[in-house]
């Protein structure tokens, strides 16, 4: 157990260094982009160099980028203050800064967007795993028959339709034309406050995302199951007189589970960076929308924070997967 602890802490230390490097890289990129954050703070008739220069100094954009970066790092641990007098704003640690476009501390913005993306990703993941594994196994079992052909067609459609199109079609037909679901009130409500409302908001986005992913998983599970079922130990099991169901459950699927877990873990981590198109079509205020808006507005504090978060999730997910392997596949546990 102490070996495992040392391993995990070593991996966490590396994760921290990676994140530091990522944040520095994002700062560096923005320092050399051909736009001027001070000019962006200025309104329409504002080519008044007086106002622009005054804002540059007041907002700290006159400092070299490494100094701005250092202020950012300090803020992470100590919090940051902006402005003075009645306009003073304090962002408590861990502070990723203040977004002047969104009038909020970035940490709070992330705190609001993260549950949305989490709900979207988890719901979709459950749906596509059930659908993907189920269909995959069935079409492997009934290879070459009608069900297999039908699932092949499903895979073809699912992989070729972009999510924004599936999403749009779902809204336009299910909500606007057929009135099967009410038009979502907009935004996102917590399942703990309004469960039916939450379900109403999330069901179509889940279907949209799950549709695209389930197709991929069906294909993958099918080929995994078919490949494993030709292995010697499966033939042995069959020779021992085990039922087909038991063979599938205890042997075939178990062997196919490790690669599926890897794939699901990485896809889930990818979605946590934000399912930008799905979030945009369904007006979900998740991480994808947050980052997209920030990129379009040159809102550096948000970009740094969402990039870091996405990187952190991928790195941590990799660590979690490595640990999960140990449980799924006894061979790794040595």
């Amino acid at each position: 157990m102490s070996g495992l602890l040392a391993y995990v802490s070593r991996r966490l230390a590396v994760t921290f260094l990676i994140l530091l490097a990522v944040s520095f890289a994002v700062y560096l990129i923005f320092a050399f982009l051909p736009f001027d954050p001070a000019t962006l703070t200025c309104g329409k008739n504002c080519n008044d160099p007086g106002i622009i220069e005054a804002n540059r100094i007041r907002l700290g954009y006159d400092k070299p980028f490494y100094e701005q970066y250092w202020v950012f790092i300090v803020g992470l641990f100590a919090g940051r203050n902006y402005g003075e007098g009645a306009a003073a704003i304090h962002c408590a640690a861990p502070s990723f800064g203040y977004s002047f476009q969104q009038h909020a501390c970035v940490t709070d913005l992330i705190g609001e967007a993260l549950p949305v993306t989490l709900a979207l990703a988890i719901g979709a993941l459950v749906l596509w795993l059930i659908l993907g594994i189920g269909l995959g196994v069935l079409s492997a079992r009934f290879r070459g028959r009608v069900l297999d052909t039908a699932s092949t067609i499903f895979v073809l459609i699912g992989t070729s339709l972009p999510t924004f199109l599936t999403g749009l079609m779902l809204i336009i037909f299910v909500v606007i034309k057929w009135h099967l679901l009410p038009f979502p009130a907009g935004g996102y409500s917590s399942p703990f406050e309004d469960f039916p409302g939450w379900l109403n908001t999330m069901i179509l986005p889940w279907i949209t995302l799950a549709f695209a992913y389930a197709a991929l998983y069906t294909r993958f599970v099918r080929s995994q199951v078919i490949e494993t079922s030709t292995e010697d130990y499966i033939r042995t099991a069959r020779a021992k007189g085990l039922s087909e169901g038991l063979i599938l459950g205890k042997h075939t699927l178990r062997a196919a589970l490790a690669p599926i877990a890897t794939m699901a873990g990485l896809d889930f981590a990818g979605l946590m960076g934000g399912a930008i198109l799905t979030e945009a079509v369904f007006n979900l205020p998740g991480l994808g929308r947050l980052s997209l808006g920030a990129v379009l507005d040159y809102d550096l504090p948000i970009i740094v924070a969402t990039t870091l978060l996405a990187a952190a999730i991928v790195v941590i997910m990799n660590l979690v997967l490595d640990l999960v392997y140990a449980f799924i596949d006894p061979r790794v546990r040595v």
Partner: protein
Amino acid sequence: MLKSTKTLKTTLATLAVAALATAGLTGCAAGANVGGTLTYVTFQDAWTHADPQRNYTGRDIAWFGSYMHRTLTAYDRAEGAAGSAVVPDLATDTGTASNDNKTWTFTLRDGVSFDDGTPITCEDIKYGVSRTFATDVITDGPSYAIGMLDIPSAADGSSAYKGPYATEGNDTASFDKAITCSEDNKTITFNLKRSVGDFNYTTTYLSFGPVPKAADDGDQYDLHPVSSGPYKIESYKAKDSMVLVRNENWNKDSDPLRATRANPDKIVVKFGVAEEVRDQLLLTDSDPNTMSLDALLPTNLPTVFDETGNVLPAFEGRALNVYDPYVRFAFVNVKKLNCLPIRQAIYYAKDFNGLITLAGGQAFNGDPADGAIKPLMGLDYKKVTGYEDWTTSPNIEKATALMAQAKTECPDLYARATDKNRGLVYDIADSETNKKSAAIWIDSLAKAGIVIKFNFIEAGSYYSVVMDPTKQSDLSAAGWAPDWANASTVIPELFTTAGGFNLTQNADDPAYAEFEKLSNAALVESDRKKQGEQWAALNQYVMDQMWIIPGTFSKTQEIWGSGLGGVFFWEPQGAPSFGDIYIK
């Protein structure tokens, strides 16, 4: 600039006086029902700003001005030219000027209050205006207060007064002298650094509206501004919605402009609706009490309008195709293109038909512009003469003749303009449509022997690049809408060195000195009709010198549900008259 959609004019400023008398009488459309919920949809994640000092686009000013933010003066709520008349709002009249239009005085009505019932005083307006000076916090708003009020400049060129939040080195005394309040706190006096004959148009900007000091928390005030109008905010969340409910502390009698108009009980804005979803909601009339805050997608225009731009029968009474306040054109960098015949040759060789077809056709995008002032500006517009042989398809013959003239008059620039390796350079924002339009420009100008190259600039940083004289090329694409119903917000802004958006670099042009003299004279002209003639003449002057290559007088389209009545295009704001909309 592209950012703002603003005022235009079709009428006399003198109408203001006439309208003053009728402001209390003009009612809502006959048969307007009271009650119901009016819903707006938009693909935007939130309002650009809800803070009165930060509202700048015509659409936002029209919306917040209708429902929440009152100002000293406002535009009348009327269709057509009458809408551009200034009427009193919080003030009892449209202001009194003295001291050669350098001192303006307004008196507040009785019974005006914020949404918590606190009376609005002169100090509240003074405090509101002071926020404009905090340019690092109150961003994006109009800076007229900074430009006009009699406050000295600091060494670095910015105002010596830095707004209400700054604690050090702040010249508060100057601001206190520039705006004074009477003893009873009901009369406000603005002391300006120059004569501004139409200052009561300036005060229609919400940035001259009141803010209670106790509620101000700087940047965050944008999320929960206090209301002085018929509605107040119940909830506002970006990427979600805004809900307005009736403001129980709004005193009808103090607000003749809105008294008979605030009809719906509730107003909801749904943010972040995907563009195609938004259009489908409106096209299918799924919720008849809904209006779109955005323009229709170009691909959906043929569903609503015929080829000539008229509303199809199925959408009669719930769609509009009208001129917006914008003029689109290309600035000529006169310092670099210091040769009139070449500038004119570019204008003649331009393929208007090709460019407008690419953009979606003349019916939806607008007519060829003949200068920087739009016909909707009424008094200030006069058809430009001297270019009668300009045609919507390239007039290559004329352009070629002008280039021949340029060969002897300005051989150096001629050599560059016709050199395949050098040529002229056109700044334009980087977009798919603009890349295609570049091909049309290159093609048609080549027929007159002109070589043109394109400098595609990333859209978000376009203006910050071209407004830097060291980076600006020979020509720069731009658009402009006047800030209020007077070409004083067009001609001096675009073509004099004092203007905020002069990309012509014309200061060294031999024709400039005379132009500046005439423009300054027009600025202080108090006879509005005569002033209109002066602006029209200056517009002609600009075209004689070809300081811009005119593009289009552009148009915009609006759509709303069948359950709504009272919708019309409010010309001075270039937006629908939101405050007049009711549920049928």
